[in-house]
């Protein structure tokens, strides 16, 4: 090619000598393009090509370019008479329409154009498109001609076929007669070399009816190479993509194609021409010429077929992306939801991400909180245990009393029974009664010990449904010995019926016990009239309300809010944890606790707990 250019320039230069002076191309070149198309515009390939071309021409900023278009329809018509009629028609039609550049699409069109130019459009430069490199080589570069040369060897199609069919051994050619092919006529000559080592099934030029049958029965490791079919061979014409659609419906093997629009029609892909690019290339060349360059000075551009593949067909024939030739593009990939709704998806993802983050954060928080709660509960349990051990000393008299009571009975009964049995005429009935009493007292003693153990063992926080009145009664019974020893009158006023709440019985006993002991301690200094009154009430139907009031000196009003603080104490030996534990336990039971001074003197401690649903 390099060698050709100087020669071309020479030719162009010579040609210019013959041009009349007033027609100097540089000055008067009409801004009009005549687009001559070998086929018609019905097919997608030509439509895209001309669209690409128009796009570039229309975008030409300086001057509007007029575009004329003609379809030579050479795939369907031919012969000297037809050519003659076309020539006459164009001659008449464009008599008064100066043409700046002729864009000839297809080898046949270029051939006709060059043949007619002398007569119809003398001196008008020609830009060709879709001229295969083999044709271009034969053309020998006439004067004032440039264009888009295409590289689309059959070898590419075979390479694509091998890519989509592993172990390919057969290729089947489907298309109109090679002579009628616009794009692929040169493949005819390339078959022997390109298909070396492969079986070839030739369906070229066959009727559509036959093709349909034969493509359905192709051997296993074969691929179809489709060029273009323009008619069914029985008088019906269609565009090559329509024809491919029919064939693809019947084919039992993938179909390799050489033009982009055929992908959508059912081809699996191959080294394909992209029509809009070719159109744009041609338009670019035409514009350079319209802007004043000589066609002979504008070197032809080359377009290579690109490896393009149809994603749907790849799925159908189970072809993985990795087996495709390097640099392959995949078309018609079904957009994923994400691709389809990119922004919506992004927004949703962002929202989800944010929410997930938030949830994780909240879970983490919750986890931390639960850990903290569990720990504080453990601490409370430990402290409560300690507190119980401390109060256990004070309670020992109660336990001793309760335990010694049945033990005393047992001892007396046992000895009585012994004496009865020793007597001459033992009253067995009485002995039986005595034994029954002993058993009962023994159980009583066991129960006392079980209670003591339950009170002193460190038990984890456990929740069950309990009657608060029962608990209150037990604690007051517990404390009665202590109260009488300390000269305190203990009264209990229980609400009628049960006060069922959910909670830990031992811990609630401890709360009540701490409050009562606290009240008794508070009255240590008063000489007489020491009284502690416990009350249970049902409050507004949903709360159990407990109060422990005493006849002591009350709480200094500035200390009312502090009495539940840990280590707050007014006692010499107090640790200051009793009330604080009471509060912790009540809060853990979702209740409330507070202290107040009574109008008639003395302090009152109140707590409320939600009733069990």
């Amino acid at each position, binding site marked *: 090619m390099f060698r050709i250019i100087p020669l071309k320039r020479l030719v162009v230069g010579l040609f210019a000598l013959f041009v009349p002076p007033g027609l100097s191309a540089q000055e008067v070149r009409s801004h009009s393009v005549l687009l001559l198309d070998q086929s018609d515009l019905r097919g997608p390939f030509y439509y895209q090509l001309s669209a690409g071309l128009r796009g570039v021409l229309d975008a030409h900023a300086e001057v509007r370019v007029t575009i004329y278009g003609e379809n030579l329809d050479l795939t369907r018509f031919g012969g000297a008479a037809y050519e003659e009629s076309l020539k006459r028609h164009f001659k008449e039609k464009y008599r008064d329409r100066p043409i700046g550049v002729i864009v000839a699409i297809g080898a046949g069109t270029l051939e006709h154009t060059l043949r007619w130019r002398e007569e119809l459009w003398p001196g008008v430069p020609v830009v060709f498109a879709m001229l295969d490199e083999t044709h271009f080589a034969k053309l020998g570069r006439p004067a004032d001609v440039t264009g888009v040369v295409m590289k689309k060897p059959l070898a590419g199609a075979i390479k694509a076929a091998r890519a989509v069919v592993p172990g390919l051994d057969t290729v089947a050619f489907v298309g109109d007669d090679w002579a009628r092919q616009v794009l692929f006529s040169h493949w005819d000559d390339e078959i022997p070399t390109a298909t070396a080592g492969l079986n070839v099934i030739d369906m070229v030029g066959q009727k559509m009816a036959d093709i349909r049958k034969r493509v359905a029965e192709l051997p296993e490791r074969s691929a179809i190479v489709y060029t273009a079919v323009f008619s069914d061979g029985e008088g019906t014409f269609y565009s090559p993509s329509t024809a491919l659609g029919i064939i693809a419906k019947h084919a039992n093997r993938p179909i390799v194609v050489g033009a982009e629009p055929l992908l959508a029609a059912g081809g699996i892909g191959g080294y394909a021409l992209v029509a809009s690019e070719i159109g744009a290339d041609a338009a670019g060349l035409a514009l350079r010429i319209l802007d004043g360059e000589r066609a002979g000075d504008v070197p032809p551009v080359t377009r290579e077929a690109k490896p393009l593949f149809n994603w749907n067909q790849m799925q159908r024939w189970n072809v993985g992306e990795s087996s495709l030739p390097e640099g392959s593009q995949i078309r018609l990939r079904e957009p994923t939801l994400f691709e389809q709704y990119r922004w919506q998806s992004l927004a949703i993802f962002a929202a989800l991400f944010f929410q997930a983050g938030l949830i994780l954060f909240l879970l983490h928080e919750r986890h931390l909180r639960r850990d903290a709660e569990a720990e504080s509960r453990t601490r409370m349990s430990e402290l409560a245990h300690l507190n119980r051990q401390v109060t256990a000393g004070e309670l020992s008299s109660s336990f001793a009393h309760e335990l010694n009571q049945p033990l005393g009975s*047992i001892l007396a009964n046992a000895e009585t029974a012994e004496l009865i049995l020793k007597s001459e005429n033992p009253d067995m009935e009485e002995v039986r009664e005595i034994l029954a009493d002993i058993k009962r*007292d023994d159980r009583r003693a066991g129960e006392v010990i079980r209670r003591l153990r339950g009170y002193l063992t460190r038990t984890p926080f456990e929740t069950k449904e309990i009657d608060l009145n029962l608990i209150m009664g037990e604690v007051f019974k517990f404390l009665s010995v202590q109260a*009488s020893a300390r000269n305190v009158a203990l009264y209990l006023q229980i609400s009628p019926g049960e006060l069922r709440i959910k909670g830990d019985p031992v811990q609630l006993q401890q709360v009540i016990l701490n409050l009562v002991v606290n009240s008794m301690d508070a009255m240590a200094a008063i000489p007489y009239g020491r009284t502690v009154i416990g009350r249970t009430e049902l409050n507004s139907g949903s709360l159990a309300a407990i109060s422990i009031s005493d006849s002591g000196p009350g709480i200094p009003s500035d200390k009312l809010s502090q009495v539940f603080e840990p280590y707050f104490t007014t006692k010499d030996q107090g640790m200051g944890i009793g009330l604080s534990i009471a509060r912790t336990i009540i809060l853990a039971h979702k209740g409330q606790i507070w202290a107040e001074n009574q109008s008639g003197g003395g302090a009152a401690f109140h707590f409320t707990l939600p009733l069990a649903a």
Partner: protein
Amino acid sequence: MPTRIHVVDDDDSFRTAIERRLKLAGYEVATYPSAQQLLDRLPDENEPGCILLDVRIPGLSGPQLQGRLNELGFTLPIVFLTGHADTPTTVRTIKAGAEDFLTKPVEPEQLLGVIERALARHATARGERHKIEEMQALVAVLTPRERQVFGLVVRGKLNKQIAHELGATERTIKAHRHQVMEKMKVQSLAELVSIAERLGMLGERK
């Protein structure tokens, strides 16, 4: 005369057990589930017996009952029997005159021993009181003059001194003195002095 033990305890089981044991030991037993019930039907003091009293009883407590009985001048001995004995209570009750303070479970032998002792003491005390009452009754029949002579005689005054002190003749005093010995049913001056001492008359200054 039957000996009756009064058991005051709120624990049914214990009351029954101790009643059985005491009956087996030959006592009459009366039981009271509360202190008030004993107050309501006070036992006969002249009948030998004792009170077995629990400390911790709902309502009136054991020590409180003891206080009431003391106020009433009730003399039956009280033995405390409790599940748990704390020092202040023990001291308080013993000071208030309790016979003994026992802790449950108590060995029946020990309990019976304490009861026996209490009964014996009570019997002695009762006998003593009985005698004093008798002597008081004798003193009561003396004329005022005779009482004056009695008081001076037991202080070791001679008839002459007494006559001088009372402004009477020695003979009259001698007659009074004889009368006193007669009425007080004694043979010697020593006996008379003993009576005066037991009735607490020696401290009197008349």
